[in-house]
């Protein structure tokens, strides 16, 4: 039996809602960025929503994730509150990190989000250490370590997967292969056909999944979670997906064609899933519109909350350096 068969209608609608919330959040971030309310840089997750939502749905609240510079989606999918995320992006004191971290460092230790990460591949050893900690403490938690195809070429990837494999650590490494590092195509950056093939180097399972199909992601990751939770050791999953936007705001996307982008837009994970739910009679047009309205309201509330929140005080600069 597939794991997804035990998902209720409510579960599925909530998964759709989360995907829409991620998309809406990122679009709101773009808007606020152009209004200069957000500074620094942003790396948007639009197009990849099914991977974060499908994977995190397979986790418990006390399971861990590590994320990346493109981390808003993972945070929302793991249960992060868009109010505190938006406040963080606006640099406010009420944000997840009191305005000290920003887009690339959002963390929520209470729900197992061990942080987005500004360094490509930087979170992979940390996820591995969390796995070690779980094993030593004897809990039944698991870790999902999200990273991109670019990070798969960092030394930290090899060191960590090797360590996790020899110690049988409860970590699921998910490569979100969105086809590009910043601009360098994965086909130019690696010689192997599939990044999941690298699992062979560690004698661990390597699985490829359609990262734009939330149900396939949920089924694949649920299977991995069950194995890993029961002491089966680490698993590498390659999630095939696509980054709709450029790497960051300043990216003119000269390295890829508009045709390629259009082709991937036709595989939109949100449209695929909403149409599937409608065809299965689990969602109506009205129901979909209600979800859209809910997303809009939630994000408007988040932006209102953030805007109404104070900036950090000057003395906050000097706190939280040491425990």
């Amino acid at each position, binding site marked *: 039996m597939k794991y997804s068969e035990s998902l209720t209608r409510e579960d599925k609608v909530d998964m759709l809602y989360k995907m829409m919330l991620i998309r809406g959040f990122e679009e709101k971030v773009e808007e606020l960025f152009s209004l200069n309310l957000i500074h620094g840089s942003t790396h948007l997750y639009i197009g990849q929503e099914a991977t974060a939502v499908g994977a995190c749905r397979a986790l418990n609240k006390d399971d*861990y994730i590590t994320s990346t510079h493109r981390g808003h989606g993972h945070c929302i999918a793991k249960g992060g509150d868009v109010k505190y995320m938006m406040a963080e992006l606006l640099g406010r004191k009420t944000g997840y990190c009191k305005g000290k971290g920003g887009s690339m460092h959002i963390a929520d230790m209470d729900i197992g989000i*061990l942080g987005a990460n500004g360094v490509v591949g930087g979170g992979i050893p*940390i996820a591995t*250490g969390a796995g070690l900690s779980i094993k030593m403490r004897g809990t039944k938690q698991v870790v999902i370590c999200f990273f991109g195809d670019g990070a798969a070429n960092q030394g930290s990837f090899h060191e*960590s997967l090797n360590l996790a494999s020899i110690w049988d650590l409860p970590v699921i490494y998910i490569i979100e292969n969105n086809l590009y590092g910043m601009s360098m195509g994965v086909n130019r950056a690696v010689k192997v056909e599939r990044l999941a093939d690298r699992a062979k180097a560690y004698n661990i399972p390597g699985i490829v999944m359609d990262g734009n199909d939330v149900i396939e992601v949920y089924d694949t990751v649920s299977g991995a979670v069950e194995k890993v939770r029961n002491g089966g050791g680490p698993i590498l999953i390659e999630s095939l997906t696509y980054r709709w936007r450029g790497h960051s705001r300043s990216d003119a996307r000269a390295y890829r064609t508009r045709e390629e982008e259009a082709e991937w837009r036709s595989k939109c994970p949100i449209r695929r899933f909403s149409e599937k739910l409608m065809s299965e009679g689990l969602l109506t047009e009205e129901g979909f519109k209600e979800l859209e309205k809910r997303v809009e309201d939630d994000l408007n509330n988040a932006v209102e909350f953030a805007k109404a929140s104070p900036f950090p005080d000057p003395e906050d600069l000097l706190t939280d350096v040491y*425990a």
Partner: protein
Amino acid sequence: MREITFAEAIREAMSEEMRKDPTVFVMGEDIGVYGGAFGVTRGMLAEFGPERVKDTPISEAAIVGSAAGAAVTGMRPIAELMYVDFATIGMDQLVNQAAKIRYMFGGKAKVPMVLRAPCGAGRGNAAQHSQSLEAFFVHVPGLKVVMPSTPYDAKGLLKSSIRDDNPVVFLEHKMLYNFKGPVPEEEYTIPLGVADIKREGRDVTVIATSMIVHKALNAAAELEKEGISVEVIDPRTLKPLDVDTLVRSVKKTKHVIVAHEAVKTNGFGAEVVAVLVENAFDYLDAPIIRVTAPDTPVPYSRPLEDDFIPQERDIISAIKEIL
């Protein structure tokens, strides 16, 4: 009081903390059956077993990063690097991850880990196995840096470092490992951030670290015969630095020599000089002189290595120059 070696003192500190606290463990290259490259963990595997005395592959980024990941999720790892020179390979995990997690996350996480590493020249290990890199670490907000010179200090400071809720870099001069000194049987700790006056004097203050403390003490004994009274201060903790003790001494002696084995430019001594200029300028009767290694890699040949390392005669001539 009984006398034990510097290495034994470090082993006792780790073992005592591991007996008391099940979350403390040690990991690193060849620390198990082999007992560590310098024998510091010898015998610990037999007492604590392979789960708490963990041999790792030769993977510094994974060692440092997984220690950080274990620390943020409830453990208190002690990670051993075989040589501090290899910290460069794990530097992203130390500098960009471990040191910054607390601040980036707005104070919502702590990273209670110790990174132990042998440093220093004197064994003919040449340029990649003999450096004193403490200034790297002192420069990074979020890290604490400890550099003891005696078995007594090493034990007391390491126990405090293990109990500290921050990442602590603990630097052990490899020529000190067999150095014996009095260490009480009974439990004690030494707080981080407190300097020690190793010898009281009236005429000149020598602020020295690690191995050079002993050379300064020898120099002081030599100069006493000539009627020159030398005060020797060991900061012990480079960060946080006990500025008050240094300033008090300078107010008394009005003459300062700063001595360390690291190379001169931007070495830790530069920071000490700056702090004294800021806090005790009016009390100085002469320019401060730094006695350090020259700005070169560590050479191999024995006579060259001896020339590289600051010696008693260098300290003596510097003192005579400013008195």
